[in-house]
């Protein structure tokens, strides 16, 4: 079989792509493998063991950090998704919007600025106006930087949706609210879902801001992991990492499947 005349084929790209995926996944695989290692020293394999998982699951500090992270992430996701949805509707569907461009830039501002700058700026603000509650600080800051991540997929979806459908709904005697509930929202739902997933992910993942704002009682998961890493790598950390990697992969796959279903329905 000759592929000599396929002009779109560049030789060597297949193996290169293979190496690329090896590079993407090998580090994660290493963490997963060592998490089952009985030996205290990560690099030395002795035998298979689940002991680090049981110690991870019985680690109260870890569970507290997880609880803090989940609480912050859930609240920030709800807040940022609602704000982003309102903003996207106003920017894409509103007529005669004054400051449309400026408003869009403001919504996306957290993407344009380095996070560390925002983190220290927020730290100064909170210390000046005297907000002591660690949870409140985290939720406000997370809501802000999660908003553009929720906004972009919703905006894309809304922009891709033909105005005809909303007009057809009005033509068929639906009020604005009915149109929103029965036509607009179901059709942009995949965008809203992706936006919410992204916001959740970004909040759960955040280290820079949380590290600045965390106080004793409100350590988030990444901040806790950072402190574990700082105190020296341990197999228990590998077990924790493996559990989190697993959770991320499940979440990512679920998100992808929902998004794919949304696209197929509206083809």
């Amino acid at each position: 079989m000759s592929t000599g005349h396929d002009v779109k084929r560049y030789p060597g790209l297949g193996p290169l792509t293979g190496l690329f995926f090896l590079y993407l996944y090998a580090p994660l695989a290493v963490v997963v493998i060592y998490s089952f290692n009985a030996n205290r020293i990560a690099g030395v394999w002795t035998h298979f063991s689940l002991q680090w998982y049981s110690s991870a699951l019985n680690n109260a500090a870890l569970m507290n950090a997880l609880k803090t992270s989940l609480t912050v992430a859930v609240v920030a996701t709800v807040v940022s998704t609602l704000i982003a949805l309102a903003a996207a509707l106003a920017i894409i569907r509103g007529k005669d919007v004054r400051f449309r461009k400026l408003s869009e830039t403001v919504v996306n501002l957290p993407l344009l600025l380095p996070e560390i700058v925002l983190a220290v700026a927020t730290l100064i603000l909170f210390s000046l106006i005297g907000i002591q509650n660690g949870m409140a600080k985290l939720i406000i800051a997370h809501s802000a930087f999660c908003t553009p991540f929720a906004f972009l997929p919703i905006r894309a979806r809304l922009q891709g949706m033909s105005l005809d459908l909303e007009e057809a709904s009005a033509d068929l005697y639906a009020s604005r609210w009915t149109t929103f509930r029965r036509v607009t929202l179901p059709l942009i739902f995949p965008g809203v879902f992706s936006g919410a997933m992204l916001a959740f992910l970004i909040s759960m993942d955040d280290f820079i801001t949380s590290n600045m704002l965390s106080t004793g009682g409100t350590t988030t998961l990444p901040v806790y992991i950072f402190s574990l890493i700082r105190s020296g790598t341990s197999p228990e950390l590998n077990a924790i990492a493996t559990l989190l990697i697993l959770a991320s992969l499940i979440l990512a796959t679920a998100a992808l499947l929902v998004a794919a279903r949304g696209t197929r329905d509206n083809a």
Partner: protein
Amino acid sequence: MTMDTLHLPFATKRASGARFWRNLSFWGLLPSWLLMGFALILPIAIIAAVSVATRGAHGGFTWDFNLAGYSQILFNEGWTGELEFTPQYLMIIARTFLLAGATTLICLLFAVPVAYFISRQPPSQKAILVYLVTLPFWVSMILRVYAWMIILGKEGTLPRLLENLGFPPGMSFMFNDGATLTAMVYTYMPLMVLPVFASIEKLDGTLIEASHDLYGDRWVTLRRVILPLTAPGILAGAILVFVPSLGAVLEPTLMGGGKQMMMGSLIQLQFGGGRNWPFGAAIAMTLMAVVLIFLIFTALRSARKETAK
């Protein structure tokens, strides 16, 4: 406005639909403006002010105008108050640029061929490959950096592997710029592959055939057809990698160790252990200025290209 509503009831009645939408736009955007105003614009204004404030005796600051925060980037105040030039922080700024630039370049060199290869696969496999590219991005960034600590660290996988191959034991690849760079490339790679893939995917395949039809070989086609037409995606990817690279904190802190700082970790230090807020604020303002200048420059360039078309 008020005059109109008071005296021209007919005119406003006709515009009632439009006015509803205008109100909706207002109420729709209000929450965003409030949140961003409070949690973003106000803090940035405050940090700008703090960058020209005076350092307090025991951390914190006082509201006295002072450019010491900025001058400290270049000069060290001696015992007698004279300023002497120190390259220490300039080195950190230079390292920040070099590492961010190198990260962008390496990501680019990987991303273009890989994205091209993926775009050439049948649809079902393509979807799976794109999914596999995005997947690691869902894993927490700190864990992705941590994975490289396990591989490169003193008791890590790579030194062990090399020891088994006959190299001397106890080699460490940690706590240098190379380690930082490795982690940065790894964490930001998907941000490059995805936009590049999106623009290669949009490329009309018949253009490649047309180039070959007109006697262009693979190399000519790549240089004169594929790369120019995918430039917007490549630029988007470069921005997506370069900007967060400039502000990297985790990679230099964990991989570079205490000595090999970047601007991000330097800022963090001033608000953590260093306790020099005006200096930290001045570095933060510098970093923000650099990023904004870079973004405005690329935005203007692409705007000029648009008008030229």
